[in-house]
């Protein structure tokens, strides 16, 4: 304060140089803000259209909604939930995705613990096999899996798709958890064993509680993967009554291709949960992405 009073010029020069930096960086800000807006526009158009009535959506661009008379409605959501199986689809997606997330994580955690903290012949080779399976395209398994499930008479049931998603999710889950377990402090586990703790005790009381961040990343990743899946559901769950939202929307697209007010609200319903997860748990989400950059 005192300095500024004594040297008024300094403040001005400071301001001028700041302004200069600001102006020289203007193209950068302009570009970045433009890109960010551009990237959000398509999804924003979807949300807007889902809140307009059928006639308005069919006869005018969604961007015209932001001028008087500002008419928005929730009617499309009501209609699509009650009449287009989207309500049932939402429940089905949950029925598929929750076990499809919990089971593979639990199963993978055991294997990851063995890979990280036990010594046995062939350990590295087996882990390389897991890495290779990470990249095997799901298409390569669909025909035999469909035949197998049909032979077992469980094709088209929820347990069948739980089993399939468990298997497809395992390589990534083992990979991610093993890398996290290996980095846990060795002394901690050693002293637990010295105190006479069993493997089970160390695993459930020590390793899992310490690995909550990794488990959270993995859970988000696997949940979104199953929630957003179309192909596996199309092949394994051919019963419309059990269809998840992705399948329901795909059917809506082919039957109501031009009724945009319905399609947009259906699509937005399927996006709500992923978006909530994204905004609430962004840190874990990004962490999962960074760990598992290889998985498709």
């Amino acid at each position: 304060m005192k300095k500024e009073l004594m040297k008024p010029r300094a403040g001005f020069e400071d301001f001028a140089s700041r302004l200069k930096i600001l102006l020289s960086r203007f193209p950068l800000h302009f570009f970045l803000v433009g890109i960010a807006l551009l990237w959000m526009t398509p999804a924003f158009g979807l949300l807007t259209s889902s809140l307009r009535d059928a006639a308005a959506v069919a006869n005018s661009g969604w961007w015209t909604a932001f001028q008087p008379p500002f008419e928005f409605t929730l009617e499309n959501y009501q209609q699509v939930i009650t009449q287009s199986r989207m309500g049932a689809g939402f429940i089905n997606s949950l029925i598929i995705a929750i076990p499809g997330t919990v089971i593979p994580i639990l199963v993978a955690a055991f294997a990851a613990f063995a890979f990280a903290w036990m010594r046995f012949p062939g350990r590295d080779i087996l882990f390389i096999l897991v890495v290779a399976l990470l990249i095997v395209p799901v298409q390569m398994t669909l025909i035999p899996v469909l035949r197998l499930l049909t032979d077992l008479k469980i094709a088209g049931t929820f347990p069948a798709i739980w089993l399939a998603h468990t298997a497809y999710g395992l390589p990534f889950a083992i990979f991610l958890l093993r890398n996290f377990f290996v980095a846990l402090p060795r002394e901690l586990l050693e002293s637990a064993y010295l105190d006479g703790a069993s493997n089970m005790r160390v695993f459930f009381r020590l390793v899992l509680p310490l690995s909550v961040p990794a488990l959270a990343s993995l859970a988000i990743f696997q949940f979104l993967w199953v929630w957003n899946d179309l192909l596996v559901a199309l092949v394994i769950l051919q019963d419309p009554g059990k269809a998840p939202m992705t399948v329901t929307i795909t059917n809506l697209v082919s039957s109501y291709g031009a009724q945009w007010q319905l399609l947009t609200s259906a699509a937005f319903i399927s996006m709500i949960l992923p978006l909530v997860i994204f905004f609430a748990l962004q840190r874990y989400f990004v962490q999962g992405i960074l760990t598992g950059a290889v998985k498709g």
Partner: protein
Amino acid sequence: MAGWLRSGPGGKSINRRGRLIPWLWLLPSFLFMAVFLIYPVIDTLLISFMNRDSSACAGAANYQYVFTNSAAQTALLNNALWLVFFTVLTVGLGLIFAVLTNRVRYEAVAKAAIFIPMAISFVAAAVIWRFMYTFRPEGFTQIGLVNAVATNLGLDPTAWLVQQPLPYIDLLLPAPLHTNNFALIAVGIWMWTGFAMVVLSAGLKGISTEVIEAARVDGASEWQIFRRIILPMLSPTIAVVATTLVIQALKNFDMVWVMTAGNFGTDVVATLMFKEMFNYHDFGRAAAMAVILMVALLPIIFITIRRFRSQGETR
């Protein structure tokens, strides 16, 4: 992801009780993977050499079909197109955005905006973009944003998802260079740029600022710093990102299926395989297509294994 084979704690087991115990811990996982991944891969390979219902051997007839039938050739070429344009453009844009967002204070917000499409399904993205690309004939109100912008600029409205002749020269590009394939690839880029940006941005933050400052003091221009320091140091990360995108480009199914169902020359191998399975019930041909995808991915598998192994040795 780094250093998975490092001789850390796992190297010397601290638990020596029982030789059988590790296998019991592995058993559930490997049972699942054997039944749903390993056995199916082998079986698909066998099925690809058999006839449509796997009742007799067909030799290499299914592969011959895939490489000579024009629809299958188009699908193969489309996958190649995806592979090149989707991968290169997504990595390029992701790199640009990573470098630029690194320089502003609202980095987190800008990145979140670009990253959001990663969270939603291909199906939702397909609905979003079918709507963006909606076409109305000339003289009608355009309700799709792309055509609204185009007509405001004085261009003719275009059915983007149908193959279009090039403007002015009235020439239909040969398959797979149809314009509609690029319209689909653009959607893929919209979805995956956020992924490339986030991973590359993390790699960028790992580059020491001292090196960059030293170069700046020595009078290097921003472009030189990018070209000579950032790009070489980032190349392992770029490789990881490109690997993931190549896998995506080859496995690509959902988005094409919902946007065009593979019509108008947009089929890719995965969509054609689905049609062979459920429309034509020819499991031999479908399996051959899966095997082709798998073979295309083999180099990626080897590269990935080698990358992880060498990381393990250097640490």
